[in-house]
C-alpha cells in the first residue's frame, strides 16, 4: 500500500507541491498570531469540589479570585508602613486605579494591618477585580500604568492576574529564544548527519513548513475552543522534534535506495514503503499517547493533547507527502553542497560493514553477557527513578517564574516577609439550610461549635470566620452584634462580616500551621471533608491545598485508565507491526524505564533543587501535577518512535535470516546513525527549552531531553540487546491462531521488497562470524 502511495505521490508531485504551497500560504499569516486566542490558566477541572466551591465563593460572597497585589517597601528602617506618610503615599499611588476600565476595590494595609510585614517596612495592598483572572491579566498593562510608584518606596506588582500576564509574556519570550537556539542547532546537527547542505536543508524545510501549519491550526482551534498557551511550547518542541525525526528517517532511506541503484521514482516509492510506513506507525503510537490526554478534564492536558494530535498528524503528513515530493525534485542531487570532508572528519570512516560498526560490536558484547548487563542496567534506571517516590505535587504559582519578574518578586516577598500560610488558607464554603441565613442565632451557635472543633486541631494555626473574629468575643456577643448587622459600628467586625458571610453563605478560612503542600494540610482537608456541620448546613472545601488535592486525585484517578489505554493500544499497533506478542511488551517496558529515569531526574532537579545554579532556577519544592502526565504521554510516543525504527530494522534482518542475535546487532547498527542523529536533534531541541525562564517549560525540556538521551543510549545500546538476547526466539513469538488475524506484511521491509536483498547474502556470508 505504501509502495503504491509512493508511486502516486511521485506521479502527482506537482499537485501535492501546489497543495502544500496553498496550505502554507493560508497558514503563514496566522502562525505568528498563535498565542492571541490562547489562555494562560486551565490547570483545574471545573467539575472538582474545590472548583465548585471557589465559584460559589465568587458568586455568593463576591470573593475575588483575581486580585492584584501591590507591594510597597521602604529602604529606610525608620520609615514604617504604619507611618501616616507611608499610608498617604501608597493611597496616592493607587488613586489612578479609579480610571481603570474595570471595577476595582482596594484593601489597603491601613485597613488590614496583617498586610504589613514582620519588620514593618513592607506593606501590600490588594486590588480586587470583578473579572476572572484570565480577563484580569489583560488589564495588567492598564493597571500598571495607573499605579504611580511613590518616590520613597519600591513598588512591585504581583498576584494572580500579574502572574498570568507574566506567564504569557515570558512564555512567548521563552518560545522565541528556544526557537532561536533550537533551529540553528538542529541545522548543524543535520549537516553533520547528512554531510550535504541540500540533504540537511530538506528536513529543516519540511519541519519548518510543518511547524507553520501546526501553529496556524492551533490558532484556528484556539478561536473555537479554550486552549492553553502552553500548547504552543509543546507543539513547537514536538513539532520540530518529530518533523526533523521523520524527515531524517525518510531522507536517509531515500539516499540508501539511490545508493542501491534505484531510479528516483522507485527510490521514492521504496522509501515510503519502508521508512514511510514506519513513520506512520510510529506517528500512530505517538498519537495514541497524546490522545490519552484528551480523556482528562483539565484544560491544560486536553489542550496539549489536541495540540499534540495536530503536531503528529501534520508532521506525518508533511513527512509522507511534502518530503517525498521534494525528494522527487531533488533526486540524485541530494548530496549537492557537500560538507562531507568535515563530516568524515567528525564521524570517522563509515565504510565499514553493517555488523562491524561500534553499535554492532557493543550489541555483540552485551549479548555475550546478557544477565550481567541486564540486571545492573535495570537497577541503574530504577535507581535513577527513585527520587520520583517522594514526589510532591502542587499547583503552579509564581515560583515557576524567574526572579527578575515582578510577580515572582511579590510572591517571594509574601512568602518571606509575611506568614506564607496566610496567603494559602483552606477555605470552607458553608451553605445554611433553606430559609435561614448565616447570621441566624442558631446557625451562629452551630458554626461556633464547629469552628471551635477545628481550632482545637493541633495542625490549625487560626480560623477566621464570623464566629471567630476575635477570641475574646463570645458567641452571645456575636449573636447580639449580628442581630443588626447593618448597624454595626466597629469597622473591623463590619468588614469581616461583609467579607465572610452574605445571606445563606458563609466562609470559614483555616490557616494551617503547615505549608499548603504538606501532608498535614492535606490531612486537614481530608478531615474536613469527612465531617458534617449539622443544623442543616452543608459545605465544600477549596483553597490551594484542596485545589491541588482535587486536581492530583482527579488526575491520578484518570491516569491509570489513560495509561492502560496507551499501553494497550500501543501494544495492538506494535502487535500488528511486528507480528509478535512479546516484542510490543518489551518495547513498552523499555519505554517505561526511560520515562521512570526522567521522572526521577525531574524530582531530583526541580523539586529537590539540585543543579539550580547551573540551570538558573530556584527549587520549586513541588512538581506541577500535570507535568509527569504530559511527559509520559509525549515521551511514550517519542521513545516508541525510536523503538519502532530500531525494531523494524531488527525485524527486517530477522525476517531475512531468522537469526535473533545477528538481527539484533545488525538492526541496531543499521538504525544507529539515524536514531542517534534523530535522538540528538530531539535532545538538542528539547535542551533549548532548558533556557526557558518558566521553570515548567524548563522541566519539560530537560525531562524530554533526559528521557530521549537515556532511551537512545542506555536502553538502545545495553538494555535492548541484553533483553532480546535473554528472550531469544520468544521475541518473535505469537500464537498461530493470532497470526491468522495479523496482516502478513505489516512492515514492508527492504527484504520483502527486494527478494534477493543484501541482507540475506550478508548473513549467509557472515553467519559463522557472529555470536551463536
Amino acid at each position: 500500500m505504501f509502495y503504491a502511495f509512493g508511486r502516486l505521490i511521485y506521479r502527482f508531485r506537482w499537485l501535492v507541491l501546489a497543495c502544500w504551497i496553498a496550505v502554507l500560504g493560508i497558514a503563514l499569516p496566522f502562525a505568528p498570531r498563535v498565542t492571541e486566542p490562547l489562555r494562560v490558566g486551565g490547570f483545574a477541572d471545573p467539575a472538582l469540589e474545590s472548583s465548585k466551591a471557589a465559584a460559589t465563593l465568587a458568586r455568593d460572597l463576591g470573593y475575588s479570585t483575581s486580585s492584584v497585589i501591590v507591594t510597597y517597601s521602604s529602604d529606610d528602617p525608620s520609615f514604617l508602613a504604619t507611618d501616616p506618610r507611608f499610608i498617604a503615599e501608597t493611597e496616592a499611588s493607587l488613586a489612578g486605579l479609579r480610571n481603570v476600565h474595570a471595577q476595582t476595590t482596594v484593601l489597603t494595609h491601613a485597613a488590614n494591618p496583617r498586610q504589613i510585614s514582620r519588620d514593618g517596612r513592607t506593606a501590600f495592598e490588594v486590588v480586587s477585580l470583578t473579572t476572572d483572572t484570565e480577563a484580569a491579566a489583560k488589564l495588567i498593562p492598564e493597571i500598571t500604568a495607573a499605579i504611580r510608584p511613590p518616590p520613597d518606596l519600591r513598588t512591585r506588582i504581583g498576584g494572580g492576574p500579574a502572574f498570568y500576564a507574566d506567564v504569557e509574556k515570558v512564555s512567548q519570550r521563552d518560545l522565541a529564544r528556544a526557537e532561536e537556539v533550537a533551529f540553528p542547532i538542529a541545522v548543524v546537527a543535520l549537516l553533520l548527519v547528512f554531510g550535504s547542505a541540500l540533504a540537511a536543508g530538506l528536513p529543516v524545510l519540511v519541519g519548518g513548513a510543518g511547524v507553520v501549519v501546526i501553529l496556524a491550526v492551533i490558532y484556528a482551534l484556539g478561536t473555537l475552543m479554550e486552549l492553553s498557551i502552553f500548547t504552543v511550547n509543546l507543539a513547537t518542541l514536538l513539532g520540530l522534534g518529530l518533523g526533523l525525526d521523520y524527515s531524517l528517517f525518510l531522507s536517509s532511506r531515500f539516499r540508501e535506495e539511490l545508493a542501491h541503484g534505484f531510479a528516483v521514482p522507485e527510490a521514492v516509492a521504496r522509501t515510503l514503503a519502508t521508512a514511510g510506513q514506519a513513520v506512520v506507525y510510529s506517528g500512530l503510537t505517538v498519537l495514541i499517547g497524546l490522545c490519552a490526554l484528551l480523556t482528562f478534564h483539565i484544560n491544560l492536558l486536553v489542550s496539549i493533547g489536541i495540540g499534540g494530535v495536530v503536531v503528529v498528524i501534520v508532521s506525518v503528513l508533511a513527512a509522507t507527502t511534502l518530503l517525498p515530493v521534494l525528494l522527487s525534485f531533488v533526486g540524485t542531487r541530494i548530496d549537492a553542497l557537500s560538507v562531507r570532508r568535515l563530516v568524515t572528519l567528525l564521524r570517522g570512516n563509515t565504510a565499514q560493514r553493517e555488523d562491524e560498526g561500534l553499535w554492532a560490536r557493543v550489541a555483540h558484547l552485551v549479548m555475550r553477557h546478557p544477565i550481567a548487563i541486564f540486571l545492573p542496567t535495570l537497577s541503574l534506571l530504577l535507581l535513577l527513578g527513585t527520587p520520583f517516590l517522594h514526589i510532591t505535587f502542587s499547583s503552579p504559582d509564581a515560583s515557576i517564574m524567574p526572579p527578575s519578574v515582578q510577580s515572582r518578586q511579590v510572591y517571594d516577598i509574601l512568602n518571606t516577609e509575611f506568614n506564607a500560610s496566610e496567603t494559602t488558607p483552606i477555605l470552607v464554603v458553608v451553605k445554611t439550610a433553606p430559609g435561614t441565613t448565616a447570621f441566624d442565632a442558631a446557625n451562629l451557635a452551630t458554626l461556633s461549635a464547629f469552628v471551635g472543633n477545628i481550632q482545637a486541631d493541633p495542625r490549625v494555626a487560626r480560623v477566621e470566620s464570623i464566629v471567630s473574629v476575635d477570641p475574646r468575643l463570645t458567641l452571645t456577643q456575636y449573636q447580639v452584634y449580628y442581630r443588626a448587622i447593618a448597624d454595626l459600628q466597629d469597622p473591623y467586625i463590619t468588614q469581616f462580616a461583609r467579607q465572610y458571610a452574605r445571606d445563606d453563605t458563609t466562609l470559614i478560612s483555616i490557616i494551617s500551621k503547615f505549608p499548603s503542600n504538606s501532608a498535614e494540610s492535606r490531612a486537614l482537608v481530608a478531615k474536613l471533608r469527612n465531617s458534617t456541620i449539622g443544623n442543616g448546613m452543608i459545605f465544600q472545601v477549596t483553597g490551594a491545598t484542596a485545589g491541588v488535592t482535587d486536581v492530583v486525585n482527579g488526575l491520578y484517578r484518570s491516569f491509570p485508565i489513560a495509561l492502560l489505554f496507551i499501553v494497550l493500544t500501543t501494544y495492538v499497533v506494535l502487535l500488528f507491526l511486528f507480528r509478535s506478542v512479546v516484542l510490543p511488551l518489551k518495547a513498552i517496558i523499555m519505554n517505561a524505564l526511560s520515562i521512570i529515569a526522567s521522572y526521577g531526574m525531574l524530582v531530583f532537579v526541580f523539586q529537590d533543587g539540585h543543579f539550580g545554579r547551573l540551570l538558573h532556577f530556584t527549587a520549586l519544592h513541588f512538581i506541577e501535577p500535570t507535568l509527569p502526565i504530559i511527559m509520559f504521554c509525549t515521551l511514550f510516543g517519542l521513545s516508541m518512535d525510536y523503538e519502532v525504527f530500531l525494531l523494524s530494522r531488527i525485524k527486517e534482518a530477522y525476517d531475512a535470516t531468522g537469526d535473533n542475535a545477528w538481527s539484533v546487532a545488525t538492526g541496531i547498527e543499521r538504525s544507529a546513525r539515524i536514531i542517534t542523529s534523530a535522538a540528538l536533534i530531539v535532545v538538542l531541541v528539547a535542551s533549548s527549552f532548558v533556557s526557558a525562564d518558566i521553570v515548567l517549560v524548563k522541566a519539560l525540556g530537560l525531562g524530554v531531553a533526559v528521557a530521549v538521551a537515556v532511551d537512545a543510549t542506555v536502553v538502545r545500546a545495553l538494555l535492548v540487546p541484553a533483553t532480546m538476547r535473554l528472550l531469544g526466539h520468544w521475541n518473535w513469538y505469537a500464537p498461530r491462531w493470532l497470526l491468522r488475524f495479523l496482516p502478513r506484511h505489516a512492515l514492508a521491509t527492504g527484504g520483502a521488497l527486494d527478494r534477493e536483498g543484501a541482507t540475506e547474502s550478508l548473513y549467509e556470508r557472515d553467519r559463522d562470524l557472529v555470536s551463536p
Partner: protein
Amino acid sequence: MRPRLFQFPACFSVFSVVVIVALSGCGSAGVAESFPTPGPNIAAATVPASTPGPVPGTVIRFPLDEAPHPVITEWWYYTGHVQTADGARYGVEYVIFQGSRADFPIGYAAHFAVIDPHTRAFAYDEASSLARNVAFGGSDGFDLRVNDWTMRGRSGADHLHAVMKSGAYAIDLTVTDTKGPVLQGGGQFSYGPGGSSYYYSRTRMRPSGTMTVGGVAKPIVDGTLWFDHQWGNFLATNGGWDWFSTQFDDNSEMMIYHLRDPSGKIVQTFGEYIPPCPRDCSPTKPVPSVALSADQFSITPLGAWTSPTTGISYPSAWRVTVLAQGDVPAMDLTYTPVIPNAELDTRRSTSVIYWEGDCTITGTKGGGPITASGYVELTGYDKPRR
C-alpha cells in the same frame, strides 16, 4: 522452532505492574478522621435581652489599671473647659481610643475638638496610627502617642498635648485630679450580652498649661476637665448612646447615660452621683459615689439640631430630672449646648459621626438654684432607625 518457556523473564510483567501501581498510587491521601458534628443547641441559639448585669472580674487597682490593657476596646477620654488668662473659655475634648482585634497590631485613634463660645467656632481633628509590641500593664500609668499627639498620666497627674493640623488650636495641658477616681457602677460596667467593661472616671481635674489659638499660646488659669477610662472586651453597640457629664459648682458631679438599640428604644440606663469630696480624698483612692436607678432620673430632649454638613438630626438641649433618694438630692436641670454645631465626622479614624459638646447647665438641686458645666455626647444618630 518454539522457544522455551523458562527463557521468558517474568520480571518484565512484574515490573510493568509495579510501574502502573506506582504511578497510579501517587498523590492519594486516605485519612479517615473527622471533626465532631455539633449537636442541636437550642439554648445557645437563644439570645438574652440586652440588659445590664454584674460583670465578673477583679476590682480596679490604681495605678496599675491606668495603663493600657490587652482588651478589644479601651479609651482615655478628657472633656471639659479651660479658661485662659485673657478671660476666654474654651470647651475641649481630647480622647485616645485603643482598638485590639485578634492578633493585629494595636490600632489607635485620637480626636481633638475645641469649642470657642466667643466666636461660636467649633474645630476638630483626628489622627490614627498602629503600634506593635505594646507593653500592657505596669505601674507607670499610661503613655500614649498617636503620631504627634501624646497623652500621659499616672495617679491623676496627666499631661495632654495635641495640635490640629490646621493650626487653629493646640493644647499643652497638665491636668491634676482634685478629687479622686470614681468607680462607675462599682468599676464594672456591663453592656449586657454585648460585653462588659471596667470603668472609672476622674470627675474633677484642674488644668494648667497653654491653649494655643491661631498660633498664639494662651496661659490657662482655670477650668475643669472630666476624665473617663474604660476598657473591656466589648464593641460599640449597634444603636447608640446619650452621655451626660455634669460638674456642679458645689463640687459634686453626676454622670447619666442612655443606651439605645437600633430602633432608638432605650435598652439600658445608667447614672452615678458623686457627692462633694470628703476630707481624705486622694487621686489613687476611689471616692464614694451613689448609683442612680433607672426610674430615678429622666432625660427629655427640648429641641433638635440638624447638621448642615451631614444632614443628621440630633437632639439639642435637654431637661434632666432626678428624684431624691438617699444621699442624692432632687434635681431639675436644663442642659443647653454652648453652640449647636459640635458634630465630629470621624469616619476616617473611628468610622463614626457623633455630636459632643460643651453645655451650660442651670436649674435646681436640692430645692436651690445651681449652676454647672458639663459635656454631652450623642452617638448613633447617623443611622436610620429600624
